[in-house]
């Protein structure tokens, strides 16, 4: 059976290689100092989708991302690795969205894309670390969800079997399609970009990129290749209520951001007695340093 798979992906600042200039004076993220990358766990999700596509001929993998115009890179990156097409959801109205407003916008876009069998997303993004968007999208679409997936073991007869990686072990869970799965970083790494696909899609651009670009190439290539226009949707395209999008749709308010620098201010000397060690363990658990 062929599957229609949607992969949710996010462009994030690469917080894994944080240097000393990663934060600005005012405590906000200095995006200029951090390269924008494909959220790592979303790549794990994409790999699961591509594997299903291989196992089920005729399946399609569609990427959906929300972000500024430059997030079109995420769609191209997905195409280079084997996705079939993608949609960039971009609009000033989406700016400042928290997880609720984001999942609303994504769910509206998914409705617009139409019928699907499976939605895959990374467990969480490395910038916000909330792990909320995937589950919220499922709720808004009224479909079941399986989180923390490490491996999609099978899809057959309208059912899916997933191996979940949990804190204290693994669990095999089943569910009925259509359904949403969030994928853990412990799942298989995504395959590399492919030489043929990179040549095929390197000039793929969104309409706004084409307008902004002074390069003749897209025009030249357009004449020969129809596949090079990436889909770009605004809030109006997906019929989203602007009030529920972006800052206005976000109940989360950021009161203050602090750049916390850990410093050793005091020290304690313990002897080797069990009592003292136990007391330290209790103290560390109580103040949430460990445990």
């Amino acid at each position, binding site marked *: 059976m062929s599957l229609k798979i949607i992969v949710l992906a996010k462009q994030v600042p690469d917080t894994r*290689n944080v240097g000393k200039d990663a934060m600005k004076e005012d405590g906000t993220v200095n995006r200029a100092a951090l390269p924008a990358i494909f959220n790592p766990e979303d790549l794990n999700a994409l790999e699961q989708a591509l594997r299903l596509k291989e196992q089920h001929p005729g399946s399609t993998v569609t990427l959906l991302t929300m972000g500024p115009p430059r997030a079109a890179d995420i769609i191209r990156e997905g195409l280079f690795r084997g996705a079939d097409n993608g949609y960039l959801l971009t609009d000033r109205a989406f700016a400042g969205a928290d997880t609720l407003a984001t999942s609303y916008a994504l769910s509206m876009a998914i409705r617009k894309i139409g019928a699907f069998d499976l939605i895959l997303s990374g467990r969480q993004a490395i910038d916000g670390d909330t792990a909320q968007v995937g589950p919220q999208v499922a709720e808004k679409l009224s479909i079941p969800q399986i989180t923390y997936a490490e491996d999609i073991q099978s899809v057959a007869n309208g059912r899916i079997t997933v191996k979940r990686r949990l804190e204290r072990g693994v669990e095999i869970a089943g569910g009925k399609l259509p359904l949403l799965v969030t994928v853990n970083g412990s799942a298989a790494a995504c*395959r*590399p*970009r*492919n*030489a*043929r*696909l*990179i*040549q*095929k899609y*390197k000039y793929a651009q969104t309409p706004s990129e084409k307008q902004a670009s002074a390069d003749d*190439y897209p025009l*030249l*290539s357009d004449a*020969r*290749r129809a*596949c090079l226009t990436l889909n770009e949707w605004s809030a109006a395209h997906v019929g989203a209520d602007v009030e529920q999008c972006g800052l206005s749709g976000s109940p989360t308010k950021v009161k203050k951001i602090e750049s916390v620098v850990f410093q050793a201010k005091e020290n304690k000397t313990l002897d080797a007695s069990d009592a003292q060690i136990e007391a330290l363990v209790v103290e560390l658990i109580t103040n949430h340093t460990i445990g």
Partner: protein
Amino acid sequence: MSNFYLDNPSLKHHLHHPLMKRIVELKERNYTEAATYDYAPVDFADAMDSYEKVLEIAGEIIGEVVAPHAEEVDAQGPKVVNNRVEYAPGTVENLKATTQAGLMGLSMPRRYNGLNFPMVAFIMASDMAARADAGFCNLWALQDCAETLYEFGDEAQRQQYLPRVCAGATMSMDLTEPDAGSDLQAVMLKATEDPENGCWRLNGVKRFITNGDSDIHLVLARSEEGTKDGRGLSMFIYDKRDGGVNVRRIENKLGIKGSPTCELTYKNAKAYLCGSRRLGLIRYVMALMNGARLGITAQATGLSEAAYREALAYAKDRKQFGKAIIEFPAVYEMIANIKAKLDASRSILYETARFVDIYKILEDIEKERKLDEVEKAELKKYKKLADAFTPLGKAMNTEYANQNTYDCIQIHGGSGFMKDYPCERLYRDARITNIYEGTTQLQVIAAIRHVLTGTYLLQMREYQSETLRPELDGLKARLARLVEIYEQLVLSVADTKDNECIDFQSRRLVECAGHIIMGYLLLLDADRHYEAFIRSAEVYVSYGEAEVHKIQHFIRNFNPDSLEFYKQA
């Protein structure tokens, strides 16, 4: 995050050589395939951009996957289990990543699912791969066997095997036997016709077969019973899926340990004739070997690159007598020489690859249509140059890879002798490069012809006639004087008309040609990118000059009667 393409600007420099315009327009048949294949380029800039993007993927996989596995693969190596080779786990992952990225069959035409890349781009990937892991470079570079299968196989064979290579099937060339190493005319593996099954049957033993348990083999075998020389040998294709060839053992080698070197037994193995009978050695294997020699030249260059980087990093880091050792003249001179030999190696590597590209593409076009007069002249010129530069480049670069990895250990001092640093692996890996695919001594035999007939001299004059930026006038004049010395030396040796004397001096003459040509090539590089190459140009010309004078002194003072002293009583 390391990308072996992006972190090495000299690769981009060589990729963007002016001659590429001609190479790409020939290779792409004036960009006509864009109508059929959505990944074919629409013009020159598009093609070059594609090469860069694909080399970037290759550089990323080599830097991120192959390089981190190198040490472990070297320690574990492949195993033989039930007559089959099992690669080290790191090797398996390397092959998987390169295949998934669509990098196999890089140079094959698109109609067989290849990328139709010129040799220059393919060789560049080998160059990078060898910097990471010379053993893996072999497995990668053996896909070049597909080139021979494409050139000499029939259309049905091309359609049968080439798409498999592009999908990741590995290849090997089964040539040598216990009694047929450098002398392949002595090959004994027996091929018998099996008309009932429309195939041939192979029986016998092959030895020292790199990647001998590959999916598709090209096999040199004796098809003409009763013959004793090269004219009784034919080339066959053996498909592992048909069975009949077993791996008896793999060699325990000094280096390139990740690459299995196999002893194979053929028991009635089914095989198919590739091309015509009797042309196996004299035509096909010679073509195969020329491709393989270029591959080894790339491998040696990649090893020199790795040696340079290791030496430089260590010399900057290591402090003795209160300062970094790179500040001592004895050390920085060694590093400058490594760098100069590395840059010179890379220059002759890509110069050769370009020559090979032009003539091979024209030969391929000749199968489709008649060449015009200009193209015919071009084919003739570049074929001759490729023929001359292939053995010269292999001889020079592989010897330099040995010298550079040797010096790299020396810079590491006692630590270099320990297993703790990559330099000892580089040193062991480099040692095979000047032996296999024809020893340096055999390259000299191939190259001396072009010394005596003037191919190199003509090319030196061609380089001399180029107009370069005036800052390079001094170096150019010095090279022009070396050309004069070279010409006189060649005449003086040729004038003896004594073959033994000529053989005796031939390595010296070939080396002179190498020093001068590589000096000119560095000058041309410095003309395009002055800052990037002027140091190596200066250092290499000074080095080459001293070498040529040394050789001049030896040859001038050589008395033919003293040959006797060189023969052991």
